């Protein structure tokens, strides 16, 4: 198929969203299905067909999502209803919208990122031994030690006691 001349092409916009919690491994295809489900269930097939959302890339804990220009509002509202990707709980925090992917990549490079926990991550929270998974400034994500306590807790550095 011959590509259309630029004046006849659809104008697109790109939305940058941060994936939380930090360090969540997400497949682009799975995230696309989660977003498509959120858009369709909120706005219906007719509007979803106009938005034509697509996951362009996942980089450094951020996702770049494409939509038709003028449908950013509908897409961002739908993105705020995304609560999980397959069985993984997550939230998408809108950072910016732009007409080019490159400017959003600049935003990703300029932002702070969460770091994996230290080598010896033992600490105590609420009189329970926990392991630090991720930390970003004051924010610390921990998991309980042992097979049964593997769910993640979200605390701050000042609430931890060193183990």
């Amino acid at each position, binding site marked *: 198929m011959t590509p259309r001349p630029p004046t006849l092409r659809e104008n697109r916009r790109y939305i940058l969203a941060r994936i939380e919690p930090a360090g969540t491994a997400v497949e682009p295809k799975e995230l696309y299905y989660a977003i498509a489900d959120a858009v369709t269930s909120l706005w219906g097939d007719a509007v979803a067909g106009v938005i034509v959302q697509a996951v362009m890339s996942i980089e450094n804990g951020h996702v770049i999502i494409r939509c038709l220009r003028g449908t950013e*509002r509908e897409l*961002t*509202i739908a993105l705020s209803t995304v*609560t999980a990707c397959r069985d993984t709980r997550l939230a998408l925090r809108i950072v910016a919208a732009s007409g080019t992917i490159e400017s959003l990549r600049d935003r990703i490079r300029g932002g702070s990122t969460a770091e994996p926990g230290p080598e010896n991550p033992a600490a105590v929270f609420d009189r329970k031994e926990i392991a630090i998974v991720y930390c970003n400034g*004051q*924010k610390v994500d921990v998991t309980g030690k042992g097979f049964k306590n593997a769910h*993640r807790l*979200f*605390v701050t550095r000042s609430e931890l006691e060193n183990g």
Partner: protein
Amino acid sequence: MKVTDAAVFPYPCGDTSVRRFALEAKALGFDSIVALDTQPCTCEGVDVLSGILIREGQVKDVIPRVKRAREAGSVVAVCAGDNGFNRAVISLKGVHILRGMHTADKNGFDHVAAKMAADTGVAVDIDLSVLVSARGMARQRAIHRYRDILVLEQRFGFPLTLSSHARSYLDLRSVREITGLCSLIGMDSDAAGRALGTIGRLTEPAEPAVRVVS
């Protein structure tokens, strides 16, 4: 005007500590949060208000709990029930918020209850967690109920509050996202801003009935 999330459930009810909730709320544009079953404090510049959620089927069980909560200075929210229960709860002194309207009886909040809420200053809560996480009929029903409440609010002028009902910081939404979600139920950004500031107005000390001018 303080921008407040009217209900969050910190650890151990949820997976996020109070301080972490305060940090995340600050990043999302809030000045204060109502944390249920915690002590009031200020964390990272965000006021954490103590909240009590009362889920009782009988008004006679609600009265002593409201009395205890009033003495503790907490924000008192009562889960809505049928029409008679709601009217009785609204007339109780010390109740700040009537919540759970989307699950309450269909005729549980009528024009008489709306008038009473406007007279007594009891707020009706819009629980955004239903709009965020529910799908299909459950969300459609909630949108319909909230639109109905907004019609009564525009007629009688009772206060509204907005709550994320978050058990994890992942359930919190930014002020901008909340404004977007409120547009689904026909609430414009001014009305959403007013609703976010309601808790600040409800909890500020009442002006004395008599003021000496000179």
